[in-house]
């Protein structure tokens, strides 16, 4: 296999380290853990480089290894010891939003120019704050599912869920809580 400079494992840290780090950091939300994952990924990549077929780019191939490492990380830190309680799942919020029949009893005000918010540094700060206010496993789950790397089966396994239905309910409640937080902390202040 012809090796270009990019293919040379010695240059991987310089060429792909930052990219892999960002990929990990968004998902695990811890600088130390993200650093460890980059290191493990590079080590694994170097060890398996003779199996690299060259059908994808090194970048794609390393990212694939990292995805597995991330799922392993969540699997190792399984959450089954602390299952989500009613308050985690936002039962109170649910009951304050809907009446007995399941109809809205609050008014939702249209968010003003939400797309412009994405250009504001302060918005991202608030968004991160709202994510951090969620129970950790709910925020992890929403990020992993939305960023699209983790199958529902893997999510269930990590969370100790028996059925995907529990997963969909949890994600729905997570969005509900996050929406509420953004509403109060950002859009209502606009």
């Amino acid at each position, binding site marked *: 296999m012809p090796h270009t400079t990019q293919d040379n*494992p*010695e240059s991987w*840290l310089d060429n792909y*380290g*930052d990219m892999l*780090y*960002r*990929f990990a*950091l*968004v998902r695990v939300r811890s*600088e130390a853990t993200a*650093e460890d994952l*980059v*290191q493990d990924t*590079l*080590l694994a990549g*170097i*060890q398996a480089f003779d199996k690299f077929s060259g059908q994808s780019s090194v970048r794609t191939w390393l990212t694939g290894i990292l995805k597995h490492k991330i799922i392993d990380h969540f699997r190792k830190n399984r959450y089954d010891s602390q299952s989500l309680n009613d308050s985690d799942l936002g039962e109170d919020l*649910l009951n304050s*939003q*809907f009446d007995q*029949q*399941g*109809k*809205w009893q*609050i*008014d*939702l*005000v*249209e*968010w003003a120019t*939400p797309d412009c918010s*994405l250009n504001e540094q302060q918005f*991202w700060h608030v*968004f991160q704050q709202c994510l951090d206010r969620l129970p950790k496993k709910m925020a992890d789950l*929403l*990020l992993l*599912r*939305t*960023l699209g790397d983790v199958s*529902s089966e893997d999510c269930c396994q990590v969370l100790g869920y028996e059925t*995907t239905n529990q*997963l*969909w*309910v949890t*994600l*729905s409640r997570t*969005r*509900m809580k*996050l*929406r509420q937080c*953004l*509403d109060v902390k950002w859009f209502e202040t606009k």
Partner: protein
Amino acid sequence: MLKCKQITELASNSLDTSIPWLKRLQIKLHLMMCETCYQYIKQIKFIQNTISGIEKHQENIFLSVEAKKRIQAKLNQAKIL
């Protein structure tokens, strides 16, 4: 008839997985009559897009010099390079 509470949950589900066409139709019909659910769904879709955009937003984040040194040391230590 599905109530708002069920509609919001279904709409969230539809962001995660494919839901049956009949349920999709029920959501559509409900949204024609219910402004609050319409707003709710617009907002959770915005949240969805925001999360998808996090990576792009963080393009200016890099491994620190120290972190690179630590990783390099580990790679050397593994005597692979």
